[in-house]
């Protein structure tokens, strides 16, 4: 799984994924501290993530292992919203403190 930060949304009416009622979010990959990297991924939002939040993304066929995406043409889902990351005993990311956007 990788870290990414929700950057915005991607709207599409003409699509062929037979998925209704969820949003495609534009995410920018980031490191465990929330520092942005230079890669954008469109991911299906399963958890109601908001712009600016750091999330966990599952990719590839594993992204089809959920109720909503089973057997669907999806290769990236937002699996969780990150509250806290601890590295070697030190907190390197905390959701409340991070809300600077």
């Amino acid at each position, binding site marked *: 799984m990788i870290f990414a930060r929700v950057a915005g949304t991607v*709207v599409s*009416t003409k*699509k*062929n*994924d037979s998925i209704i009622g969820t949003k495609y979010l*534009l995410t920018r990959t980031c490191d465990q501290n929330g520092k942005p990297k230079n890669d954008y991924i469109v991911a299906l939002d399963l958890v109601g993530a908001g712009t600016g939040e750091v999330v966990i993304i599952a990719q590839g066929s594993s992204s089809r292992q959920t109720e909503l995406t089973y*057997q669907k*043409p999806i290769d*990236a889902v937002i699996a969780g919203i990150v509250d806290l990351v601890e590295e070697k005993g030190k907190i390197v990311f905390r959701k409340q403190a991070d809300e600077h956007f």
Partner: protein
Amino acid sequence: MILGRVIGTVVSTRKEPKIEGIKFLLLEKINPETMKGKGDYLVAMDSVGAGLDEIVFYVAGSSARMTATTEGRPADATITAIVDEIDISGKLVYQKDRI
């Protein structure tokens, strides 16, 4: 899924019989911040009727075979959506037929 712009088509007459009758489109990956191409190209199978210059996103790997058009075929990149709008932090960076 990855964002791309349709910049052309790819025609192949001598090919694996299993990919008969499927349209190949030439995509260039784009950076949504600038909406400019990243100089990174691929051939994707079209399952939504995407046209030249349209912004799309495609699904890769085994998931590319999860559409009626590409089921059971050697497809590892399938366009599954034509994008109408992209916004970053609430600001519209792309709108089909407008910006």
